[in-house]
């Protein structure tokens, strides 16, 4: 298991490194932030000073080496905007996004399992048609527009929910509903598809021939087989969830990492952007490892043959 884990970690780390380097390089190309932070009438000397103080006059490679050294020491430098520690800012914003994303994913998985199974029991039945309509809609409706319609209907017209903020349970409803849309739509299709094929496998027939009832067949025999594909897709969905989080956090003023990233790009705040992006990349990386381990727990076939054999 350890060898397997190490192999997975090494192969998943490559994207992580590429992301760090790529974002660093791109962020440097956005131009000199001196123009943004110094008064309009700043002298050339002030500009040079500012540039030197922030190490921006060094060659790109030196800056990158400094940066990598900093990353290893968990030092991302200070925010140009607020002067605060960049890593601290990113870490402070992280829980808000994590709460939002985790709640959404848990809800999406649970709902998708129920609806997907329900649809798979009677292919082309009523439940199946409803579920395919929902997933079709989920793939077609822009999330930002759904959020705006939600605000228009529930916050402005009906006045049931707040338009933004994080206070109170009501504030969670619209962001989660918006964020839920896509992962739920995709997962329902995955669960339904793999349930339909699992239910037509010979081992299901054999389980019935042993006297296993419908409920046992579905929850015990088919679902565990169908869960593995859903789990693999969950990784891709989480990456997509970051896209959604950027939009949702911007619209609903959610003080999370997505909003932080957009803000720091617009403010050319390199250090914070890098810390935020790296944190996100590490989170995605950790999640992929977790998913791999979950997959191995679910299905022994992907487990490496170790001592026992």
């Amino acid at each position, binding site marked *: 298991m350890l060898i397997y884990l190490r192999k997975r970690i090494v192969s998943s780390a490559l994207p992580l490194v590429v992301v760090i380097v790529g974002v660093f390089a791109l962020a440097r190309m956005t131009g000199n932030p001196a123009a943004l932070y110094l008064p309009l009438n700043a002298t050339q000397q002030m500009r040079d000073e500012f540039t030197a103080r922030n190490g921006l006059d060094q060659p790109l490679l030196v800056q990158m080496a400094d940066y990598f050294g900093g990353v290893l020491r968990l030092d991302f430098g200070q925010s140009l905007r607020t002067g605060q520690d960049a890593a601290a800012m990113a870490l402070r914003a992280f829980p808000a996004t994590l709460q939002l994303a985790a709640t959404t994913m848990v809800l999406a998985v649970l709902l998708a399992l129920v609806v997907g199974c329900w649809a798979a029991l009677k292919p082309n039945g009523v439940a199946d048609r409803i579920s395919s309509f929902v997933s079709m809609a989920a793939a077609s409706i822009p999330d930002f527009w759904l959020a705006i319609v939600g605000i228009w209907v529930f916050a402005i017209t009906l006045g049931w929910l707040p338009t933004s903020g994080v206070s109170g349970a009501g504030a969670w409803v619209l962001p989660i509903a918006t964020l839920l849309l896509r992962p739920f739509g995709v997962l329902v299709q995955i669960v339904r598809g793999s349930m339909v094929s699992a239910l037509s496998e010979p081992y299901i027939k054999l389980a019935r021939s042993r006297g296993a009832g419908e409920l046992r067949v579905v929850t015990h025999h088919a679902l*565990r087989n169908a869960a593995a594909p859903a789990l693999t897709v969950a990784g891709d969905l989480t990456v997509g969830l970051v896209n959604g989080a950027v939009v949702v956090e911007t619209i609903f003023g959610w003080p999370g990492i997505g909003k932080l990233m957009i803000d720091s790009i617009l403010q050319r705040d390199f250090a914070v952007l890098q810390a935020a992006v790296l944190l996100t990349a590490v989170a995605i990386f950790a999640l992929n490892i977790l998913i791999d381990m979950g997959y191995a727990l679910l299905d022994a076939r992907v487990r490496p043959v170790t001592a026992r054999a």
Partner: protein
Amino acid sequence: MKTAAQSVLPGQSRAHEVVLSVRALAVDIRTHRGTVRAVNDVNFEARAGETLALLGESGCGKSMTAKALAGIMDPVCDLAGGEVVLNGTDLAALTPKERLKFAGPELGIVFQDALTALNPVYTVGTQLGEAFRIHRGLGAKEAKVQAIELMERVGIPEPESRVNSYPHQFSGGMRQRILIAMAVALNPRLLIADEPTTALDVTVQAQIMQLLRKLREEGQMAVVLITHDLAVVAEEADSVAVMYAGNVVECGPVSEVFSDPRHPYTKGLLESVPVHVGRGARLLSIAGSPPELHDIPAGCVYQSRCPLVQDICRSERPQLLPVTDRPVNDRPVDDRPVDLQDDADDYAGALLSRPGRAAACHFSEEINNV
């Protein structure tokens, strides 16, 4: 249910007693081109401690028959009629839920491909123990003990450590043994073996057949063996029902059917086996192929390939009628279709008596004169 389960213990079934009696079984398949009849008016019976072979080419409906008996047909298939009387209960008349009580304690099934028939995500111990958990309400630990015992019974070495292995960690032969162990876990009266050795090496095939024979004798089970292998039938089965295009065309004790076939299809099958054929001699085969299920002709199902075909064969479907043991040309043909219940009543020994041979051919008496 309890009493039924207890009466099923090995040795309780009297040898040669009729355990399963199938009458006028019919199965329909719904396809996009309309409903087709995959199994048509099939009659046979299986006796305790004996093996009945259902013999036929692929697509003749023999597997469909097996699935209909076990109640695990594909969703597009419907039981269109008939009775499946297992130990006095007509399974065909039960609801799926009622039927679950019989699946396991009364009836077990072995599939052809053990790899797909075993759930890949559970250990074999879990799967072997499931029957005990469902039907006897055992806990996980007790079920595991039973699973180890079962593995021992079917000859899997080191069952204590292997019980925690997953299906993919076993060889093909061992997987087939596990499948068999699962089917006999609750000592059913009836074991359906659907091509149990087709996917295996020849040497392993022999071992598996031997295991089936051993278990059959131990538990006095009735075995319905579905196969296309004439050699397996000749070696293992006591009686045989030859199927063609969803119909039983000939049935009877194996020794008699094979030595003196009364249906041109059976005869053709037997002649296609190269025994005592010299090197270089032409091998015989049956020309043509079985009809598609959606255009089975009105008359005899075998008419398109039959060397003896006459006008009557094209207009009238022959029924499965008793034939005499020895071909006696002037014996009048009994018009009555074979009805196993009636036959059984006719004889003093009732359940122990067996119907004689039957064939569905207008010219069953003349075949061997050709």
